[in-house]
């Protein structure tokens, strides 16, 4: 077996796995705190990427200021979605929240088509065609940047969850909503921050991939389904589970695509999800260790 090929597939897999992890962790966080399966999660990712595309092409900003502006913009959209739609009393009902987030997803996607058209946009950056090479294994610079952004976000998320009051409150609500209420934690404030964090992680994923993938309104749909599979494999509500499952899936997909077929690669997430649902329905890291 060609060692260079295997090394290349491993590096490619880790790079994409980290992005899956950003999306899946945000999704898992929102589920853990709000118990909402957020179908609009892919649209936060799309808006993050679209924000960069618009800010670089229309405002003439360079990549990093555009990225910051875009993440801030998606946070505002996340806030608006929470305040106007998700915090309403009916959203506590699981089925209601499913339909609500599906509706939000469609509205955001078609809203973007209406406002900026469905034309794919390409974000050009100075390092678009650069590569980092080591022993014939190479990684394009845009992917190196995406990996760095993902790792930085995870460090930030860890610090928020473990070193801040609101982070501890969030973990508390996720572990036991009733117990959290009894000790005086306000679930609404915690939920607001959870949506904000989830949306911003998703936006960072969009920002990171904007120089890698074509940006268009429908780009959120395929990734959100994959993120769902990852979250179910890792255990609904478990952040560690989601991150680890995403990384493993990224690597497995890379090997499947490189050694077998693209179709096998795309089916892998869902085949694994079905196996996990059959063998361990609570997911690999179940509810016991969530957040």
């Amino acid at each position, binding site marked *: 077996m*060609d060692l260079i*090929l295997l090394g*290349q597939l491993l590096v*490619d897999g880790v790079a994409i796995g980290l992005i899956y992890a950003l999306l899946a962790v945000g999704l898992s966080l929102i589920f853990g705190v709000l118990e909402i399966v957020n179908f609009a999660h892919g649209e936060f990712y799309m808006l993050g990427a679209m924000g960069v595309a618009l800010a670089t092409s229309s405002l003439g900003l360079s990549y990093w200021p555009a990225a910051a502006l875009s993440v801030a913009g998606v946070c505002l959209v996340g806030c608006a979605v929470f305040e106007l739609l998700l915090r309403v009393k009916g959203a506590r009902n699981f089925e209601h929240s499913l339909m609500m987030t599906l509706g939000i997803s469609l509205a955001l996607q078609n809203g973007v088509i209406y406002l900026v058209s469905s034309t794919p946009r390409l974000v*050009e950056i100075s390092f*678009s*065609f650069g590569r980092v090479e080591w022993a014939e294994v190479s990684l394009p610079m845009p992917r190196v940047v995406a990996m760095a952004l993902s790792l930085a976000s995870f460090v930030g998320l860890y610090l928020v969850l473990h070193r801040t009051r609101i982070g501890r409150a969030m973990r508390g609500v996720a572990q036991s909503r009733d117990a959290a209420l009894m000790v005086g934690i306000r679930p609404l404030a915690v939920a607001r921050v959870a949506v904000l964090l989830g949306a911003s992680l998703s936006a960072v994923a969009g920002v990171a991939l904007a120089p890698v993938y074509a940006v*268009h309104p429908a780009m959120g749909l395929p990734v959100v389904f994959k993120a769902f599979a990852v979250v179910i494999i890792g255990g609904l509500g478990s952040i560690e589970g989601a991150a680890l499952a995403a990384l493993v899936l990224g690597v497995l997909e890379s090997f499947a695509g490189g050694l077998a077929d*693209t179709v096998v690669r*795309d089916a892998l997430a869902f085949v694994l999800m079905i196996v996990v649902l059959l063998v361990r329905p609570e997911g690999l890291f179940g509810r016991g260790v969530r957040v």
Partner: protein
Amino acid sequence: MSLSMAKTVRAVLVLTAALSVLPAKRAAAQGAEPIHLGLSTALTGPAAYTGQQDRWGAEMAIKEINGAGGVLGRPLQLDVQDNACGPAQAAQSAQRLIADRVTALMGGLCSSATLAIMPIAKRQGIPFLVPISSAGSITDQSGVGGNEWTFRTAQPEPRLAAALAKFLVKEGKVRTIAIVAEDSDYGRGGATALTDAARTVGLTITSADFTPLGTPDFTSTLTRLRSQRPDAVALYVQGADTANFMRQFASSGLKTRITGRVQFGDFPASVVSAGAVDGLTVAIPYDPRVETPANQNFVKLFTEAFKAAPMQHAFNSYEGTRVMADAITRAGSTEPGAIRVALRAARYRSALDADLTFDDHHQSYNNAVIMGVVEKQVRVLDLIKP
């Protein structure tokens, strides 16, 4: 009144009369009951971008036709339904358009969608013109193939592939080809056509990958191709998938040539200017760089109207709409049977310097455009009659 004065007055009167006729004719066309043309295309989903071009092309043709007095003294009106490039939605969109009493159907866009509309057009007895979809099976099933109501101006993939294979052999730089195609009738049709054409001229196909529509990431495929080292990678994907593949190909460092069917408007110019795709050679149905006067005029008007360069979808839709309008004019009525007869006898001079006429499979053949990238520049290499 002097003689010259009388002449001047007469000339002014004649001119005034002539000028008053034109707006009157146009006004009559505007005031009359419109003739509805139904367009089923992708307004949502991954192919929405190309669907937008499809719609723009038809809109531009209709605006020009209406500006010149319409058809049979009536204005044309475009009714558009979204099919999202899916067969089920395409069938629904066609049924809705027929329920809305359109005179003829156009579009389909994706081959899978077109193949779903064809039996409906046949059952309902409505002329259906296919200007974009390229799967070979559409031609096989049309005209003497059984579906008397479907006509196609789109280049069938086998003809484009044959033109490409002929050109590659003449060039002598490619012997082995790996195919990357979207998993649709378009992609599979392209892969089959190129495989057949390659076999005929002695080229070897080393592998064929089929990727789902809307695939954002081609990394693992590119990594595998890097270890296979084919002389060329033949690409049969569309829209955003092309942009993703080309950019990832450019940054992968893969040293091979691109061939197949790639639209230059689908990916950024920076990929070409970075020198990453030098040697690219593709056969496509259209490119705005083709330098015929008729095409340059179309490109100018289209760009002014929509602030975007036309892609093949817009061009084919524009010419297809004109072919349909011409058939209705020659039919002298909006009766479907009469339009079908008129379509069979159509002769339309394309901006690609070929006369479009329909054969017994209701297929017309335009010139194939061979495009290439030479020293970081995109060039029209040849126009080949397939």
